[in-house]
């Protein structure tokens, strides 16, 4: 039974780092690498051998309605592979980047706690347990955003922590309502009881959860904290936050709650459609005027999350397929773009696009991979972003929402425009740079190249044979509410 180890391994690594590492951060790096490589191997092994079945692990032998259960199905394994893959590349990138900030093992301990929290959110089958893991991930994220110890980092972290506190309180009240309505905290049990509950109460619970987890996913009216937090954090942490944290804590939980537990009620699907379209258009409009590269990327995260919410709100199999596919693609190309921004920052000491310039000769790997990532995010074939956006747009038209499809196309065009600006000023500009502060090392280049290759390879996932193995089981899990209840409660009831 490998399921609890997704939480145990990173927690153990975090504690061992604080206990053993002392003043030597080589130990911390070795421990973090060992933990993350084993996590990645375990999650890929789990995904390959799952055969579309759900595994339920009851903690300390207490069965589902009484004890806490961990649930492993295609959706959670998909998220685990994504989290641990991005985390491993982020660790590769961190080593040089963090050394030039400070020589410190505390970073790696916090990093492992972040992974533990996210993995926990993804594998748990219990609502309150999910809340606790979410707080573990968030508290370490607040600390990591403030890691650079400059004034604006403290400011961003404070803002992030206050918004996080607000959303956590809303979620906690939602959990209290849910418990009083259903007398249970196990997600599958809640899903079973909820149809018998007064529909007005279900509306309240849904609204509280939509507001709480919408804040975590930074969809449009709740987005204010994201650009500050994601642009002020160290680059590998920005990529973790933008690439996976908002998805593991926001989008994944929305999928789980609104599909597996609530059974896709129409009113919330409408709300998700509107929120998604708003996020796409307003996010990209705010992004296009930015000159700080990381801030521009952070606004694009809001816009790309909008695509995922739009696909989710369509609630058709094709829409969900697009949303799940875009979830993975966004994690790949947005992390890569943040690594590029971090590498440029290491070399030139600036994130301002006006001060960059001719970097294509100086940094061939960085500018090459940034080109791949820019083409992916703006939806140019044959890169992965094209296929997922195309699927979402086709699904919107099929579901009879041509207006939302139009907004999605418009958002994609504006994304292309803003990344042409990044390439024009950032990597092919006029300013010559002769004296780099430092050059990106092998591991940094390895992290960027890996993600660039994956950006191209993951577009193969639309081919029917591969799609049936990877994306289709995830879509089945999301749309099959009764299947989820039966699998989780099957043994216990």
């Amino acid at each position: 039974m490998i399921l609890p180890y997704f939480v145990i391994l990173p927690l153990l690594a975090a504690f061992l780092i604080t206990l053993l590492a002392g003043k030597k951060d080589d130990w911390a790096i070795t421990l973090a690498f060992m933990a993350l490589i084993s996590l990645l191997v375990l999650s890929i092994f789990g995904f390959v051998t799952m055969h579309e079945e759900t595994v339920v692990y009851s903690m300390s032998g207490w069965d589902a309605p009484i004890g806490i259960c961990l649930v492993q199905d295609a959706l959670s394994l998909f998220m685990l592979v994504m989290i641990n893959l991005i985390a491993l590349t982020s660790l590769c990138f961190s080593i040089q980047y963090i050394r030039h900030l400070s020589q410190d093992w505390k970073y790696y301990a916090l990093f492992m706690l972040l992974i533990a929290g996210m993995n926990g959110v993804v594998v748990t089958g219990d609502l309150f347990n999910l809340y606790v893991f979410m707080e573990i991930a968030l508290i370490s994220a607040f600390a990591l955003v403030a890691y650079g110890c400059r004034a604006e980092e403290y400011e961003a972290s404070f803002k992030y922590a206050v918004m996080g506190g607000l959303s956590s309180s809303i979620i906690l009240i939602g959990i209290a309502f849910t418990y009083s309505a259903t007398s249970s905290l196990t997600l599958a049990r809640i899903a079973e009881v909820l149809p018998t509950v007064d529909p007005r109460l279900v509306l309240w619970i849904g609204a509280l959860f939509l507001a709480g987890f919408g804040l975590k996913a930074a969809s449009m009216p709740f987005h204010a904290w994201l650009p500050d937090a994601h642009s002020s954090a160290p680059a590998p942490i920005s990529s973790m936050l933008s690439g996976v944290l908002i998805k593991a804590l926001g989008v994944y939980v929305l999928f789980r709650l609104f599909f597996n537990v609530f059974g896709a009620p129409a009113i919330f699907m409408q709300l998700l459609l509107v929120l998604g379209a708003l996020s796409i258009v307003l996010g990209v409009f705010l992004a296009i005027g930015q000159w700080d590269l990381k801030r521009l990327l952070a606004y694009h995260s809001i816009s790309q999350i909008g695509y995922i919410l739009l696909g989710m709100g369509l609630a058709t199999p094709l829409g969900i397929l697009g949303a799940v596919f875009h979830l993975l693609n966004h994690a790949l190309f947005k992390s890569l773009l943040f690594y590029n921004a971090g590498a440029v920052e290491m070399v030139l000491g600036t994130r301002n696009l006006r001060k960059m310039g001719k970097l294509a000769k100086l940094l061939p790997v960085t500018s090459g991979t940034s080109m791949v990532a820019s083409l992916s995010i703006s939806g140019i074939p044959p890169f992965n972003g094209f296929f997922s956006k195309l699927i979402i747009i086709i699904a919107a038209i099929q579901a009879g929402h041509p207006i939302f499809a139009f907004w999605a196309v418009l958002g994609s065009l504006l994304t292309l425009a803003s990344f042409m600006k990044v390439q024009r000023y950032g990597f092919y500009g006029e300013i010559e740079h002769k004296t780099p502060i430092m050059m990106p090392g092998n591991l940094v280049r390895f992290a960027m190249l890996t993600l660039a290759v994956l950006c191209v390879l993951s577009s193969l996932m639309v081919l029917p044979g591969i799609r049936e193995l990877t994306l289709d089981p995830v879509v089945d899990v999301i749309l099959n509410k009764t299947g989820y209840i039966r699998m989780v409660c099957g043994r216990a009831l």
Partner: protein
Amino acid sequence: MILYVLCFALFLVGVYGLLTKRDLIKIILSTAIMGYAANLFLVLFGYRHDATFPILTEANAGQPMVDPLPQALVLTSIVIELGITALLVALAIRLYQKYATFDITKMRSLKG
């Protein structure tokens, strides 16, 4: 019913403070108030009228008991809020060292 309304009012007091106050310490207090309101909600939902404490003894055998689970949840969530509040206070101290003020309108390095 009146208790639930008052509890919700307490939550709104926290949200109001969060949105309108400019002092870092008052903002931290507002987040704490929101947390208390959420905890109070949980305990209220577990409360049963005329029920005893949820420990089975000879004295209260057979009588209705209050629901013990929300109390356990509240203990957990109090610990989490303690952690968040400590982090916020630490950040406020560091911000004071950088800006020599607790006024949030005077901290303007992030805009847009």
